[in-house]
């Protein structure tokens, strides 16, 4: 029997989470140390950091040293299998950052990939929400629907200003959004919707009600049905984690193509969990595949303790 006091808080949390994931039918994915650099180069848009460490193999092939787990999982998927439920706990490596240091980062996360139902997608968000309870008893999951955001930008004719609108949402910067809307002569209807959406920060149920009032046309009926399905799924399982609808949550909007979420706990300076649906990425592997996943930042545990 292991003595708990011999382990750090981070190690204990890692064991507890691995136990949770495997109890939910997820199995451990182990990544190869070196993989062809060309694969990561092709999928650079989906990498959070472009600072890949690579070496020349004896035959002249450029090999990357563990740059990212999710991309590695997708690369090695067996598409004959209908559903992959995987978790991982691996160190990844980055070439020197702005301060000139090589980096070793622990990536800890969960992915569900395959021919998935809405229920499969919701169950992953539920798993993310209950994982947060291992960090703190008052966690909050901030949920956003990026497909709504992207559709709105398109309909409002703001495609060219996409990055700036995204930056305004990310920082709830109303001044910047108003500037962009004025520059683009945006229709009054979409102007009001975008402004309200930027400051939206409501418990999921209230948030969906508010969204339904804002987005009353048919273009968004599928999105609304999906969000309501998510709410019902979480509610039926008596989820204790608070869930808020907030469109400032996602950082990788182009990566996450439908729901995305971040998990926060009191006292940490930033999120301790981040994830979302990234089906566009796996469709390159198999058109019938969908995907969703999240990563947990265990290093933020120390961060929390210092406050």
């Amino acid at each position, binding site marked *: 029997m292991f003595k708990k006091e011999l382990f750090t808080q981070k190690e204990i949390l890692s064991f507890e989470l691995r136990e949770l994931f495997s109890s939910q039918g997820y199995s451990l994915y182990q990544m190869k140390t070196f993989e062809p650099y060309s694969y990561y180069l092709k999928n650079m848009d989906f990498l959070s950091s472009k600072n890949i460490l690579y070496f020349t193999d004896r035959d002249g092939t450029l090999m990357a040293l563990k740059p990212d787990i999710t991309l590695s999982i997708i690369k090695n998927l067996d598409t004959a299998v209908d559903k992959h439920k995987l978790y991982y706990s691996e160190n990844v490596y980055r070439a020197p950052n702005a301060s000139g240091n090589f980096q070793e980062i622990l990536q800890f996360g969960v992915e569900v990939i395959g021919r998935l139902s809405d229920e499969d997608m919701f169950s992953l968000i539920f798993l993310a929400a209950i994982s947060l309870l291992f960090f703190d008893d*008052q966690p*909050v999951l*901030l949920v956003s629907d990026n497909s709504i955001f992207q559709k709105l930008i398109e309909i409002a004719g703001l495609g060219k200003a996409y990055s700036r609108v995204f930056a305004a949402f990310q*920082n*709830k*910067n*109303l*001044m*910047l959004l108003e500037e962009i809307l004025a520059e683009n002569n945006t229709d009054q209807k979409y102007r009001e919707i975008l402004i309200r959406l930027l400051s939206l*920060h409501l418990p999921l149920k209230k948030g969906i009600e508010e969204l339904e009032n804002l987005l009353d046309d048919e273009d968004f009926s599928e999105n609304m049905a999906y969000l309501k399905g998510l709410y019902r799924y979480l509610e039926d399982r008596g989820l204790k984690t608070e869930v*808020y609808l907030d469109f*400032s949550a996602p950082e990788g909007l182009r990566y996450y193509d439908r729901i995305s979420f971040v998990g*926060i*706990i*009191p*006292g*940490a*300076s*930033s*999120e301790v969990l981040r994830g979302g649906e990234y089906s566009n990425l796996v469709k390159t592997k198999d058109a019938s595949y969908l995907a969703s996943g999240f990563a947990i930042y265990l290093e933020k545990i120390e961060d929390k303790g210092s*406050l």
Partner: protein
Amino acid sequence: MNGGLKIALPKGRLGQKVYDILSKIGYSYDEIMQESRKLVFCDEKNGFTYFLVKPSDVATYVEYGAADIGFVGRDILLENKSNVYELCDLGIGKCRICVAGKRDFPYHEKNHLKVATIFPNISRDFFRSSGKTVDIITLHGSIEIAPLVKLSDVIVDIVETGTTLKENNLTVFEEIVSISTRYIANKVSYTYKNKEISRILDLLNSLKDAKND
């Protein structure tokens, strides 16, 4: 989360202006503006803790959660690409970040420039989008001297009235961005202390509306 709101206030002239605004919305705490070397102040009545910090450090305190909210110039937010919520424009500390240089310098004809600035990131982003290649020389003050002593072709600096430029025989070639002081919040605090942070936001907006009427 620890109770009460932790507020990062900029020291100096901007701090005085911010404090005046806080007083106007009902949050005065006179000890802050009294001459002393104290840097932390506890306003028990309102449940606020104030930190007096260097203006350029306010966003860092907020981003890393040492403070829940703060008041900072947009120049600092743009330069540091701070990951904070930018909730409201206080309408004070208004000025512009501009490209300036000697009157006789053919700025518009040059494709490559030596640029002296305290804003290397803002400058790099601006010239990248304008198609000019640049060498950035980072300085920490008295930027106006750089073109005069041929350290650089142009400068990227804050211009308030333009008097300093004029006195040094310099002129503005191009405006990059207009700046003013912003009310910012830490992204996690925004959820856990939403009531207090939103209340201050509402009061600041009401004050602005009253001013505009």
